[in-house]
């Protein structure tokens, strides 16, 4: 590992550095992903730019409308333990609590988890299901993209030359909607997900509204299970319908075989975990699945 280490103190300085050293500079926030990439020689960046000294990027706060605003440098553990987040966006606290071990969560940042762009990033499905948006700052100014469109492939995002992810905006969750993130991994939180499923839905007198389902680790990017969502929308959630939606999610997932699991196994687990997730958010099961915890 050899690199020059730069520590800008403002976003403007940082974007100027990234514009100047395009392709040669990597951002370090917590570093829990980046140090591994450099040590294993997956990448050899000549410059590493530490954005950790830029003030005002690590906030977790609510605006007047009840939207959650998360600075890119917000520590994962803070999202997990924030009483506000636990109360108002519990699915985010839940996903944050399943990202690696406590010692990783104490250092890792939300921006790092997203910009590393692992298809298995644990915070991505929950944020996508909630309709989160990403604020990006670059040399030309600011722009906002829907988080679902932020990822373009494994390790790839829409960030252009000189741009950094600055903030996330998560719309308020209505009090009568529920969300859940279920992670299937061999060492629990400490390992990467084999399958991750986030579901958010509102039940209106037995009818499912605004169902959003997002899958992790079963495609080149975190992805929506749109066919499953469409099946559920406006319907009474019978066991048969939930089963069909879970099968639809499995069918639209695009998993690969790797060291953690085969593609076939992943597809099967998308079906199982999506079914559990839907049962949970539609009120069919009160706990995170007595069935789910047996496996998790």
């Amino acid at each position, binding site marked *: 590992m050899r690199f020059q280490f730069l520590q800008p103190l403002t976003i403007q300085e940082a974007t100027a550095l990234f514009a100047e050293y395009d392709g040669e500079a990597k951002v370090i926030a917590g570093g829990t992903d980046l*140090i591994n990439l450099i040590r294993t020689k997956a990448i050899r960046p000549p410059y590493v730019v530490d954005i950790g000294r830029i003030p005002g990027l690590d906030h977790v706060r609510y605006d007047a409308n009840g939207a959650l605003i998360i600075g890119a440098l917000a520590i994962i553990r803070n999202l997990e333990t924030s009483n506000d987040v636990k109360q108002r966006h519990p699915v985010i606290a839940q996903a944050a609590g399943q990202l690696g*071990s406590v*010692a990783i969560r104490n250092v890792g940042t939300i921006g790092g988890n997203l910009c590393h762009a692992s298809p298995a990033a644990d915070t991505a499905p929950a944020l996508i299901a909630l309709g989160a948006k990403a604020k990006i700052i670059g040399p030309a100014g600011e722009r906002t993209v829907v988080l679902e469109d932020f990822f373009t492939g494994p390790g790839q995002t829409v960030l252009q030359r000189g741009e950094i992810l600055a903030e996330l905006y998560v719309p308020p969750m209505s009090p009568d909607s529920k969300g859940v993130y279920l992670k299937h991994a061999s060492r629990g939180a400490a390992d990467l997900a084999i399958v991750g499923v986030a579901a958010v839905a509102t039940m209106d007198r037995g009818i499912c509204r605004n169902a959003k389902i997002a899958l992790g680790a079963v495609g080149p990017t975190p992805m929506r299970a749109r066919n499953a969502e469409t099946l559920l929308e406006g319907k009474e959630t019978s066991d048969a319908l939930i089963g069909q939606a879970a099968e639809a999610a499995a069918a639209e997932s695009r998993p690969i075989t790797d060291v953690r699991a085969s593609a076939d196994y992943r597809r099967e687990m998308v079906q199982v975990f999506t079914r559990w997730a839907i049962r949970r958010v539609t009120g069919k099961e009160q706990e995170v699945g007595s069935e789910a915890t047996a496996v998790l």
Partner: protein
Amino acid sequence: MKQLVTLRINDTDEEIYVEPWWTLSYVLREELNLTGTKEGCNGGHCGACTVLIDGKAVMSCLYLAMKAQGKEILTIEGLKGHNGPLHPLQEAFIEHFAVQCGYCTPGLIMTAKAMLDENPNPTEEEVREGLNGNVCRCTGYTKIVEAILSVAEKQKL
């Protein structure tokens, strides 16, 4: 190019020249001879390198020494007892035979310290969950969990 940094380790300021890519575990072990902190996987999976930074458990193998400036670093060498050389967790690990080969022990004890500082009265499940990032290949964890719970019990008295 090496840069001069001051690292506050176990209540002592250490002035030291570090390369920007040196990790905290490397600096502790190779530059400061604090070899109580172990390196296992060097990838954030095993927890052997766990130290406390500002009271929080951190994998020192994934933490650049440069980023540790201005923070309070606590390693296994800095643990103290109330009235003796050993911290209650260290005594409990001995008492409960929670150590076999010993390689994971410093990381586990530092993880346990951070856990109990945050939650002095954990359930067994919370202890097991909190140890999820620390791999021990000898003990099967049961005695480690018992040791940690015994310290929590004693703190209640």
